[in-house]
């Protein structure tokens, strides 16, 4: 039986492929989907006697990532050789960073970042036995186009306490890196790759259990499901009195199975040593200032500002902050509305009604912020009902020149007030038309009011204010 009292302890290792024009240590162009081996040279194929030279833009991008994650930037960092034999690695070592990475400790949200370092990507290999083209041939085909692509590897502390939390945080990280403009962060194409270190321990314990490493899950959904499957496996194993072995696992989303990849003991004997072909990186003041000045307001900061200054709830703030373009529009509408409506109400219109209206037609466009502000103000001041406002919005997204007051007038959507008795008369007629519902409301069935409200709304074409209609029904029924 799985021991559910065991707490999940999860850390992530994220590889971000940088969207520079050229590779990390040579001028071969980056590409995706080209013919094999059209972007290679003596450096990225590891011919004898060549010298790697780091790409300055990749250093800039790494600094931006480090600053966005609140990392300490190393005044001087060096590259190391990570030695291992594999056909996707022609030098038999990967140039990476070891004890002095370019970005040290930082934090994103509540999760501590251990480090973020620069390295080069491996080539892509296709195992022929798997592809079926030459069945069982026991050979692999290697394409070095990807070999040498700049990567930033981000490592977190084991601060995550569940599969859903891990996936949620990984989404925040992706959005943050995406807004920096330094990577495509596309999990399916492999420009964002997430590995998870997973272990469990008795709740309240501060010691770490034996961890396993889940490799290369290519969507957030699979990341979450893979971690869930591994937590379940470990809890079951420990619940039955067994022990967890340190190993690398592959999660197959189709079958839900976890399979062991290779022996950890050998795989981790990398014999790191300083790369003698490269000198140290010591970011100049100019380089640091340039990276710092280019940082946009990032999702975590924007979410916090919307909560604190605009009074949005967290979910709404996060939704807006995840899309800087939409967030910019939202802020423009808030500014235009002024005292006319709460920012919270504007957020509802922008993420709710407007999004739905834009989805309704391919040609639909956002109205000017001032125009949407006029509409929200008209609804807030009860000149137009909420339902009527949605009808106006449908016209605004189809016609960029439309004016709110003019549309309201033309479509006869001005809200019916209670003063002239017109609405009260329609309410009275609706009550008279459905005596059964009226009786139910009188005897305490509050839900029955919906039938009469619906009848009033039909009769008024949505021009009546729902709250006012409710009030009138209750008043006329003597409640």
């Amino acid at each position, binding site marked *: 039986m799985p021991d559910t009292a065991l707490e999940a302890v999860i850390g992530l290792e994220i590889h971000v492929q940088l969207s*520079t*024009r*050229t590779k990390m240590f*040579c*001028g*071969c*162009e980056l590409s995706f989907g080209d*013919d*094999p*081996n*059209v*972007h*290679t*040279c*003596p450096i990225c*194929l590891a011919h004898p006697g060549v010298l790697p*030279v*780091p*790409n*300055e*833009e*990749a*250093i800039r991008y790494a600094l931006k990532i480090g600053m966005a994650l609140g990392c300490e930037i190393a005044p*001087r960092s*060096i590259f190391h050789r990570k*030695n291992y*034999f*594999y*056909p996707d690695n022609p030098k038999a070592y990967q140039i990476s960073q070891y004890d002095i990475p370019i970005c040290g400790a930082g934090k994103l949200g509540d999760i501590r970042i251990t480090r973020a370092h620069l390295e080069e990507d491996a080539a892509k*290999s*296709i*195992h*022929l*036995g798997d592809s079926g083209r030459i069945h069982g*041939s*026991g*050979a*692999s*085909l*290697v*394409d*070095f186009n990807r070999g040498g692509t700049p990567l930033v590897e981000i490592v977190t502390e084991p601060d995550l306490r569940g599969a859903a939390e891990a996936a949620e945080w990984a989404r925040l990280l992706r959005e943050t890196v995406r807004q920096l403009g330094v990577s495509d962060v596309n999990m399916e194409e492999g420009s964002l790759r997430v590995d998870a270190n997973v272990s469990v321990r008795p709740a309240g314990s501060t010691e770490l259990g034996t961890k396993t490493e889940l490799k290369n899950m290519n969507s957030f959904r699979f990341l979450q499901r893979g971690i869930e499957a591994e937590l379940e496996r470990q809890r079951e194993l420990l619940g039955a009195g067994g022990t967890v072995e340190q190993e690398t696992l592959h999660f197959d989303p189709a079958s839900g199975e976890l399979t062991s990849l*290779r022996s950890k003991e*050998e795989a981790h*004997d990398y*014999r790191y040593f*300083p790369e*003698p072909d*490269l*000198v*140290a*990186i*010591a970011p*100049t003041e100019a380089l640091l200032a340039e990276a710092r000045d280019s940082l946009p307001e990032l999702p975590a900061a924007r979410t916090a500002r919307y909560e604190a200054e605009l009074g949005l709830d967290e979910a709404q703030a996060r939704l807006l902050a995840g899309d800087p373009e939409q967030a910019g529009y939202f802020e423009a509408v808030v500014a235009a509305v002024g005292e006319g409506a709460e920012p919270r109400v504007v957020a509802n219109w922008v993420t709710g009604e407007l999004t739905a209206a834009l989805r309704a037609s391919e040609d639909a466009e956002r109205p000017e912020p001032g125009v949407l502000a006029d509409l929200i103000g008209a609804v807030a001041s009860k000149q137009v009902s909420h339902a009527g406002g949605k009808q106006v919005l449908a016209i605004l997204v189809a016609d960029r020149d439309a004016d709110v007051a003019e549309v309201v007038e033309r479509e006869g959507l001005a809200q019916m007030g209670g003063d002239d008795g017109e609405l009260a008369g329609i309410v009275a007629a609706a009550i008279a038309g459905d005596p059964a519902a009226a009786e139910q409301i009188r005897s305490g069935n509050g839900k029955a009011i919906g039938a009469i409200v619906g009848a009033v709304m039909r009769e008024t074409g949505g021009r009546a204010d729902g709250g006012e209609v409710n009030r009138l029904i209750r008043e006329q029924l003597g409640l």
Partner: protein
Amino acid sequence: MAVDAAGRGPPRIVPVIDREQVLHVARLSRLRLDDDEVETMAGELSGILEHVDRIRGLDLEGVEPTSHVVHLENVLRADVPWQSMPPAVALAAAPEPFDGAFRVPSPQADAD
């Protein structure tokens, strides 16, 4: 490790690389060594460590660790693409090219 005022540790035992360690590193390096070669390697590697151990005996108080003998920093390159090699040239030295790719023995087979 306890260190005295001059930065020296306790007297060190000369490290010896034994047979097992040679075989382990040979395996990591994909080298096949015969018995004589294992003996030779054990001796030569131990000699290198002895030399490092002599350096440890020096007074290194206030000396920064060295990662490189060249006193240069930030030797960088602008992010400008150059002309890559034609694939035929890239593959010229490959013993078994296939469909524009390098064909190699399966790494899975190697792991067994």
